[in-house]
């Protein structure tokens, strides 16, 4: 069976709350059946608004949302059959775990035996069998979140929405829950729309990520492409760490260009969004792509002065002053102990022109 690539479709959706500012601008987004898609962006970027429009708690000001080819703007939330996991879990505090899970089944008038079976199945899926009679207040944060996930899945919804579901958990728990949710998604194949502002969460879990900023999708692609090949400086800045140089294109070619920096030196970069000589640009370089004292012959090779050394356990971050950028960060694995990293020392840094992406100016 071929997958429906437009299972959820945002078609030219605008949303404004006050009639003055558009929080979502001309959003076009197709979500395939069974996909795990993450809407990632800073707060106020419109990602949660999109989710709320899909869930039915907000209506688009303009445009239409389709679910399995049916327009849903006029369908109230309770008839959409979309499961949702909320940031604060939103478990019903006066009901036991069993009653919480049975709620969506009871309102669908499913008979009692089937309810028991489905609840059992959902609870074993999140490995909470035996917790049926607990009240939500007696569960830890992680357990509550698992119950919330189970409740959103128990009635076999077409789509499950998750609105920063792990935001309230501590770091370790958050990581293990990320894997758990990912595994659940893989085993049952439901379409998941996930909202988060945590980029590592998005990179870990998603098939595709839609990076939101300023009411628009900045880039929609798989996690690796998003990280390796950001299409604009917002994405490069937002996803992962990023060293930048501002400058002007001087020697534009098809797959290489020279960028003249403000201090006069020139670097060779990969022209991603610059078109011609004289364009202003921001060159973006991932810290791990800058190599130290390497023997390989790379196009860019400069010396910088070490300004600060921060120990991070598995690696050391070194801040150097390079080509007028005092915030240039290097990541040095702690296994490479042979290097002479001391405050004030000069250090040789080099990188390939392909990794230095000349993007739009900030």
């Amino acid at each position, binding site marked *: 069976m071929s997958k429906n690539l437009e299972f959820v479709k945002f078609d030219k959706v605008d949303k404004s709350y006050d009639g003055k500012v558009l929080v979502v601008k001309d959003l076009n987004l197709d979500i395939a059946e069974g996909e795990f898609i993450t809407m990632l962006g800073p707060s106020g970027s419109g990602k949660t608004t999109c989710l709320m429009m899909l869930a039915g708690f907000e209506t688009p000001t303009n445009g239409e949302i389709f679910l399995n080819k049916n327009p849903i703007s006029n369908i109230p939330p*309770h008839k*959409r059959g979309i499961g949702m996991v909320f940031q*604060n879990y*939103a*478990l*019903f505090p006066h009901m036991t775990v069993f009653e919480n899970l049975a709620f969506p089944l009871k309102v*669908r008038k499913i008979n009692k035996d089937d309810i028991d079976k489905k609840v059992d199945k959902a609870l074993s899926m999140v490995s909470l069998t035996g917790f049926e009679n607990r009240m939500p207040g007696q569960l830890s944060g992680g357990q509550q979140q698992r119950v919330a996930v189970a409740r959103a899945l128990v009635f076999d919804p077409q789509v499950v*929405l998750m609105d920063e579901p792990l935001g309230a958990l501590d770091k370790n728990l958050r990581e293990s829950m990320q894997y758990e949710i990912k595994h659940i998604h893989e085993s049952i194949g439901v379409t998941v729309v996930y909202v988060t502002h945590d980029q590592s969460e998005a990179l870990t879990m998603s098939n595709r990520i839609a990076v939101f900023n300023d009411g628009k999708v900045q880039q929609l692609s798989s996690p690796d492409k998003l990280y390796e090949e950001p299409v604009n400086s917002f994405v490069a800045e937002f996803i992962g760490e990023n060293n930048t140089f501002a400058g002007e294109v001087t020697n534009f070619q098809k797959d290489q260009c020279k960028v003249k920096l403000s201090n006069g030196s020139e670097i060779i970069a990969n022209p991603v969004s610059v078109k011609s000589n004289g364009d202003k640009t921001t060159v973006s370089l991932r810290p791990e792509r800058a190599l130290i004292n390497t023997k390989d012959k790379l196009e860019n090779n400069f010396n910088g002065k070490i300004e600060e050394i921060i120990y991070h356990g598995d690696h050391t971050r070194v801040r150097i002053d390079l080509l007028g950028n005092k915030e240039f960060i290097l990541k040095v694995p702690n296994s490479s102990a042979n290097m002479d990293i001391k405050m004030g020392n000069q250090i040789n840094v080099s990188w390939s022109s392909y990794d230095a992406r000349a993007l739009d100016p900030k």
Partner: protein
Amino acid sequence: MSSETKQILTTDGIPLEVSLKKAERKNKIKAFLLVAPLLLFLLITYIFPIGDMLMRSVDDKMVTEMLPKTFKSMEKWDGNEMPPEEVFESFYLDFQKLVEEKRDGKLSTQLNYTKNGFKSILKKLRRKAKNFEEGNYKEQIMDVHKRWANVEYWRAIKRRAPAYTSSKYLKGMDMYKNEEGKIVNVEEDRRIHRILWLRTLEIAFFVTLLCFLMAYPIAHLLATLPMKYSNLLMICVLLPFWTSLLVRTASWMILLQQQGVVNDFFVMIGLVPDDNRPEMMYNKTGTYVAMTQILLPFMVLPLYSVMKTISPSLMRAGKSLGGTPFVTFWKVYFPLTIPGIGAGCLLVFILAIGYYITPALVGGASGTLISNQIAFHMKSTLDWSFASAMGLMLLAGVLAIYWIYNKLVGIDNIKLG
């Protein structure tokens, strides 16, 4: 080294437990001193008056002290036939002493409470007693008036012998102890208190219900509106709080009277004919309207404080899981507001059951409550012991309601804010 049983010592050698207690004692004393003024205040203004009320309501020492010899000699009398000479003699002696001290008037009032007809025969006895000869008082007293020869009057005196009585409580329930000492109801046309108790409960119940029905949507609105609107609405709810109770009740009188604003409006829109304006005051309607308005904030505030804590995402979750708005409200929202409903209803009901000023001003004859009866006995008949008895019955009623509530809902589930 130190075993488990060995005491742990602090560095200066004092056992840890002792020094801990010492350190904590200071804090305990400080805490107690902080609450002591309030404790004292409560003791003086609350516990003590209630104790005094209790004493007063059962106190019947007055007659006991006025006729000490009589009651002593009556101990042996079984009350079936006329008492023996000994009783008459001691009664004469007691009475003469009272006459000398000019306290016989009080005695006649008190005995008249017990049985009508004592006043005149005591007056007569006082006149005649001056000329009594020594000995054979029985015959002399019986000659004064034929009622003195009636055994029922002597039984009536004997009934006043105990220093404590429950008669006031019985009276509050429209009951009394008859000559044979049995508790019986008063005649049907004189049962005023029971009607009042029932009416008090009825009005309190319906005022609570009305308050609940009106406060629930208001509280919900308050809890869900954006801050700038909800603040304004909150002020509207609280505004009556800041106005004197008397002023509010008086303004209801202006609104509700037959030539008042509400009636004028009804006539203007043609709802009622001008010559047949409905009476909305000096009856139950007036009491309902005014009390509901006055007690409304007491329902709104607990409901609001509970609703405020209910996350809006719960309703969303309910809807996203497939519950219709009504089902979601009924299964998710409503159960979560029960602590607020309980607190509000208990508060309003208890306040309503003892309400005084409003029913007194707008209630008329059919809209007054038990508290008005208590006030009547405090101010007009000066029968304080009866007023105390009814006050305590009211208090007991409130405690009973509290107890029932605790059994049904659980007092821990209450949330006032």
